[in-house]
């Protein structure tokens, strides 16, 4: 039985044709993720919970009351609140937290009949680019287990890359879906800001956070995003716009597609081997009928500094809710209320989370607001305007997702600035609120995966999914499985 080679689209068809039951499928995945638990991709797996959902799904299929996803196992990033299952957000602060409700994304998948396989490991409160800040330990990259899988959705990326789950949800604030997807050789999409509800998704930086999906193929991403997306009155920034049928446009021709290549994404700092993989991928697109046009995003080099004001500022505000009063950890000993707050937060948060809370508190403190927060918001406008200008000349923008392939564990843990610069190509997209994908495009000489970045216009996920799918019809990079996991 080798179900784990199959995509969600294929598994859904098998389930509906009665070739396999959801219970069999779910058990097969549970066995497989137990077998490869050393990768540390999951924080919580509850087989009773999963098999119960599978039984219900099988009954629905028998009655003919099923959707395309009924019975399909899916893993969820541990940032999404799940009723009845732990939601830790990778933090000691929430080590004992069982949410009293489901996030909208979880509810939508449940309503569609999918099975929650487990909750995936992640950087603490989604703050990290290597999964090394998780309280629950680092996740190993299946392509080289001494290397990081990227972050913050590192557990979800590894679950899909090692075929421990056919698909997994993720979130992307500055690259947290696209960067780990690139570093583990899978497909990942961050939708436009406002496309997927943030209700029940533990907040890091509310003007940047966006939920998305990590899959083997663009076809699966189209199917699953269609299920996740849509207006939600419980998220005040959710945009009330109809969700198109993303699968229906996957086969549109790319003839005449204009691909913008930002000069800033191909300059200093980009690894030569990554650059050549991207070049080969672009040549493939030309064969498909696309043409490339040079564009410029002149302020993108300042996106990382801008982001490291805005995201920590929002985080310092969002994470003030963890005070030891309503949920999560509370210090055992304290002398008064302030002392309880300070000790609870000192014990509950890891170093990177504390660092970002402090940067935010500093940037927002009296006397510094204009120099940091206001300045960063003005720069954000210039960065977003660059994209608006660029899209006058092209339909999509392409480049690398990351400047290098996966790095060794421990290589960047002592230097936060070096770690932050890993997200240099992904962060501008979050600042502008645009949709972006990572598409598997090949490998470097050491055999580590490279991701091709495809950025779309606001709310035009359909186009980038189509562009990714067409490439996957003529290449097989997305079908490569790490040695030892075939």
């Amino acid at each position, binding site marked *: 039985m080798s179900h784990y080679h199959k995509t969600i689209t294929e598994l859904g068809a098998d389930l509906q044709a009665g070739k396999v039951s959801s219970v069999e499928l779910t058990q097969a995945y549970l066995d497989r993720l137990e077998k490869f638990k050393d990768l540390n991709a999951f924080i919580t797996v509850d087989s009773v919970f999963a098999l119960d959902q599978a039984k219900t799904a099988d009954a629905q299929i028998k009655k003919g009351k099923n959707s395309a996803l009924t019975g399909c196992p899916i893993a969820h990033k541990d940032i999404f609140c799940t009723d009845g299952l732990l939601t830790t957000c990778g933090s000691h602060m929430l080590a004992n937290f069982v949410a009293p409700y489901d996030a909208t994304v979880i509810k939508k998948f449940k309503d569609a009949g999918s099975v929650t396989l487990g909750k995936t490991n992640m950087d603490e409160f989604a703050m990290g680019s290597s999964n090394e800040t998780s309280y629950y330990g680092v996740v190993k990259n299946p392509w080289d287990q001494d290397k990081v899988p990227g972050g913050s959705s590192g557990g979800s990326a590894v679950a899909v890359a090692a075929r421990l789950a056919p698909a997994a949800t993720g979130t992307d604030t500055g690259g947290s879906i696209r960067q780990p997807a690139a570093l583990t050789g899978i497909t990942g999409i961050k939708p436009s800001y406002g496309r997927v509800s943030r209700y029940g998704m533990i907040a890091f930086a509310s003007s940047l956070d966006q939920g998305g999906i990590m899959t083997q193929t663009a076809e699966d991403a189209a199917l699953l995003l269609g299920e996740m997306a849509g207006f939600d009155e419980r998220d005040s920034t959710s945009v009330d716009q109809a969700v198109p049928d993303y699968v229906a446009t996957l086969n549109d021709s790319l003839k005449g597609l204009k691909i913008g290549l930002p000069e800033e994404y191909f300059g200093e700092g980009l690894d030569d081997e990554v650059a050549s993989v991207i070049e080969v991928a672009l040549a493939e697109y030309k064969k498909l009928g696309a043409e490339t046009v040079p564009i410029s995003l002149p302020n993108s080099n300042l996106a990382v*500094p801008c982001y490291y004001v805005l995201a920590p500022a929002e985080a310092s505000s969002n994470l003030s809710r963890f005070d030891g009063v309503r949920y999560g950890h509370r210090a055992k000993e304290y002398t008064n209320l302030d002392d309880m707050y300070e000790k609870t937060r000192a014990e509950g948060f890891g170093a990177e989370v504390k660092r970002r809370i402090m940067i935010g508190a500093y940037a927002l403190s009296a006397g510094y607001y204009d120099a940091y927060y206001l300045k960063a918001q003005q*720069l954000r*406008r210039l960065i977003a305007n660059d994209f608006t200008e660029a899209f006058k000349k092209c339909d999509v923008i392409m480049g690398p997702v990351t400047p290098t392939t996966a790095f060794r564990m421990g290589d960047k843990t002592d230097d936060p600035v070096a770690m932050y610069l890993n997200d240099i190509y992904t962060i501008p997209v979050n600042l502008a609120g645009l949709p972006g994908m990572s598409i598997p495009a090949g490998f470097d000489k050491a055999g580590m995966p490279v991701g091709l970045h495809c950025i779309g216009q606001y709310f035009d996920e359909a186009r980038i999914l189509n562009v990714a799918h067409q490439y996957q019809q003529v290449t097989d990079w997305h079908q490569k499985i790490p040695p030892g996991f075939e």
Partner: protein
Amino acid sequence: MLINNDDVKKIAHLARLALTEQESKDFAGSLSRILGLIEQMNAVDTAGVEPMAHPSEAALRLREDVVKEENQRDQFQAVAPATEAGLYLVPRVLE
């Protein structure tokens, strides 16, 4: 911008984080490096640029002021560290 030990302590207090001496020292180093990165923003003149708080320009939606949710106090308080008679317990703040 260089952040010293005392600055770190002040910021940590604003953020309600207890730090050890060693942690304060370590954070002084890393926060200074991060502020160095952040100050690269000054390379661009942003005078007169309208700040962007948010990717979607639409104004925040308001909902009707009607009760929609049921009372779920027991469920919500089940995950709290300390409660009594429907109230959250904290150390005494008034003498």
